[in-house]
């Protein structure tokens, strides 16, 4: 008969604590009271019955019964002492305790407790980690210039031509446009522009040219966007660049 983490051996009249292996050979009063409570488990056992027992021996006194209840509860421990319930004015009741015993025993083992604690912590960290991922989108890497060339004009002035491309699919066409621009700039005597940025859309539909310079200490910028429906695409030519006045 299991009572909390104690086992009651009816034949030996012993209560054994499974955790500490402590064995308690029950005195007559405790044995009589516990045997009756177990016989009527789940029902109230009247005090007179606890005192007389099976009637073969001398009845116990009220104080003996009360003391027996006290010592039994003490041995069961604070977690299970409430298994023996006092029913005021009637007697005592031994409650069924299977579910409680199982749940408490499960968590009472240090290893199981550690596993539960680790799983709980891991789940909590996972949730918090997911929240961070949700609110911290991955950073895009900055696009760096694909190439930079410096063109020297006939006056000795220099202009940087910078190509931007984040893929290789359109790089050949972009470089070709960059060469056209460099050749046109090289024929200029002077120009207001100090840096020229070129980029081509991935599908080779739009060529973007941004000219940047300074005029009386102020930044000046000019954007040219060229769409070419011809095949093969040429976008810019030296004649066209001359037409849009890239030279002063």
């Amino acid at each position: 008969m299991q009572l909390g983490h104690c086992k009651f051996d009816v034949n030996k009249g012993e209560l054994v604590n499974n955790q500490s292996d402590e064995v308690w050979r029950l005195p007559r009063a405790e044995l009589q009271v516990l045997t009756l409570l177990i016989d009527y488990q789940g029902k109230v056992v009247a005090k007179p019955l606890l005192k007389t027992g099976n009637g073969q021996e001398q009845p116990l006194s009220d104080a003996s019964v009360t003391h027996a209840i006290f010592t039994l509860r003490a041995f069961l421990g604070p977690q299970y002492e409430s298994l023996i319930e006092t029913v005021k004015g009637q007697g005592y009741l031994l409650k069924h305790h299977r579910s409680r015993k199982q749940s408490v025993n499960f968590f009472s083992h240090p290893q199981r407790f550690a596993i539960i604690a680790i799983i709980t912590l891991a789940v909590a960290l996972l949730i918090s980690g997911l929240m961070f991922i949700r609110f911290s989108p991955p950073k895009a890497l900055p696009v760096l210039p694909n190439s930079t060339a410096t063109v020297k004009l006939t006056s000795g002035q220099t202009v940087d031509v910078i190509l931007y491309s984040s893929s290789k699919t359109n790089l050949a066409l972009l470089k070709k446009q960059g060469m056209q621009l460099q050749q046109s700039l090289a024929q200029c005597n002077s120009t207001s522009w100090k840096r020229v940025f070129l980029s081509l859309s991935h599908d080779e539909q739009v060529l973007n040219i941004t000219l940047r310079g300074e005029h009386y200490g102020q930044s000046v910028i000019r954007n040219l966007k060229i769409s070419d429906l011809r095949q093969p695409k040429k976008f810019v030519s030296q004649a066209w660049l001359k037409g849009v006045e890239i030279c002063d």
Partner: protein
Amino acid sequence: MIVLLRGAHMVKNWRWVINIIILTILLSCIGVIANLTASSSPSFMLSCSSELFNHHNDQQDSNHYLLVDLLSKDGQVQVHYRYFNIDGSSAGTVSMQGKVNSIDTENMIYDISVNTKQESPLAEHQQVPEHYRYLSYVSNLNLSRDGMHNLSLQIIEQDKAKDFAVVLFQPSNTVCGCRLVH
């Protein structure tokens, strides 16, 4: 006594578990709040003007002007594309609304998602700028497929007064010089 101590020990263990859970939840909340606070978007406005050139197969080249205004405030963003003919008349507009997803201040990259778009109807006889046609096609494709049109802009160069910046738009791989409005 031993039993009493063991009972007290188990209660302490459970308190420890509860404490860990509460602490983790608190740390998560602090992290999320800090992240949201840090990612609150500063206001900025870019104004970019471009000359558009369209080379055709069997027609004379057609030219247009394009003004792009990009306004961001409180994490919301509006992008207005206004197209003009050479004589100054309107050649169409595209307005987009969305939100700023993230700002990488170190690399000066702004990640934007556009959710809605309006295009102005053009007169039938009017020649549509190729750039307009291209922008309309790409944004329609993304909005109908993904429900959003994502773009990022990276400031690749600024002048000393920070009035002008050269900006690279992705995924279109478009470089553009813009005026910065503070």
